[in-house]
């Protein structure tokens, strides 16, 4: 009986030591790439870094959808390299601080107000959902040229 009580106490003590906390969620802007030429099935190699940032967010990943982190400034600008051809993408947005829980802390949600871009590979854009939340979903669809602009 005493052994059982000691065991229960030990289990309770171990459980008590395991206060594990999750990192807060992150709201990421999701971008989908669509070829202007509907017959093309081009999937470009994508690299992304923030303007004036030293670190690369995405490096040479072949994909037609990716997610981007927004800053707390009024605008956030990225350099997008689609098959090594650079475009800039600028998002004007508002942000709101959200309390998730005491276990994980705070995070931000964003609302897209405007989008600007250069025209090297990006032809046009459409905001599919302006709310950037912790439940990641498509926010912007970028229409890209099927072949690099210089090859036209």
């Amino acid at each position, binding site marked *: 009986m005493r052994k059982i009580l000691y065991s229960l106490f030990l289990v309770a003590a171990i*459980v008590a030591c395991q*206060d594990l906390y999750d*990192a*807060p969620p992150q709201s990421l802007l999701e971008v989908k790439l669509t070829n202007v030429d509907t017959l093309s099935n081009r999937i470009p190699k994508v690299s992304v870094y923030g303007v004036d940032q030293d670190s690369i967010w995405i490096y040479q990943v072949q994909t037609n959808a990716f997610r981007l*982190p927004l800053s707390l400034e009024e605008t956030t600008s990225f350099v997008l390299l689609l098959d090594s051809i650079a475009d800039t993408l600028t998002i004007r947005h508002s942000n709101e*601080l959200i309390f998730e829980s*005491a276990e994980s*802390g*705070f995070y*931000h949600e964003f609302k897209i107000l405007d989008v600007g871009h250069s025209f090297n590979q990006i032809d046009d854009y459409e905001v599919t959902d302006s709310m950037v939340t912790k439940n990641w979903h498509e926010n912007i669809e970028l229409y890209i040229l099927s072949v690099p602009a210089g090859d036209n």
Partner: protein
Amino acid sequence: MKILSFTFFLCLLATISLGQERDLKKKPERTDKFIHMDGLRVGLDLSRSLQHLWNKGNRYGTELSFDMELTPNLYPVIETGWERLSINHDYLEYTSSGSYTRFGFDYNLLVAEHKKDMDIVYVGLRYGFNFANQQVKKYMIANYWGDITGRLGRQNYNAQWAEFVLGIKGEIFTNFFMGWSIRGKLKMDQKDFDMPHVYFNPGYGPAEKEFNFDISYSIYYNLPFNFRGSKKE
């Protein structure tokens, strides 16, 4: 035929119900309609300082209780205490603390074996309220564009709730008792904020839940003050 079967079924149900009612009426009246415990019982809840063992974060507190047998088997109770919860990790430093009080009564279900038998098994009801404050001393949000840190000022709030209690108190030495209770807590009212929401209610528990379970383990001393001037055989 269906109507006959249905009528028979209804008659059977009515007979069973009547039989049960008669059984209830037959229940003998209590034989211990006398004051078991003179004086005022003061208790200290030992479980309040050990709550971090089964709760997230560092939760601790102190609670005192006072009860007396006002009429046979009915014990008005006051419980008052203080609690604090602090949660510290990489992303948040949160503290909440406050004092709380509960009023109510316990009813003893255990029929005493003799006049000095002060052991009780009880059910009880409480009304509880608290005055508390919370503060986010620091928060950190990891971000590609640079980590974001901030803090939020102290916020005062209060809450009210009802409690249903089931427990025992047994006399281990003369006038010394030990006991435990299981408690169901039902939130009635809560002052809340948009940023951040109230996370913890002293005396109640996690604020986001409308219903909380709790356990307590206490020691008691009965101050043998015979305010009625009655004599025990």
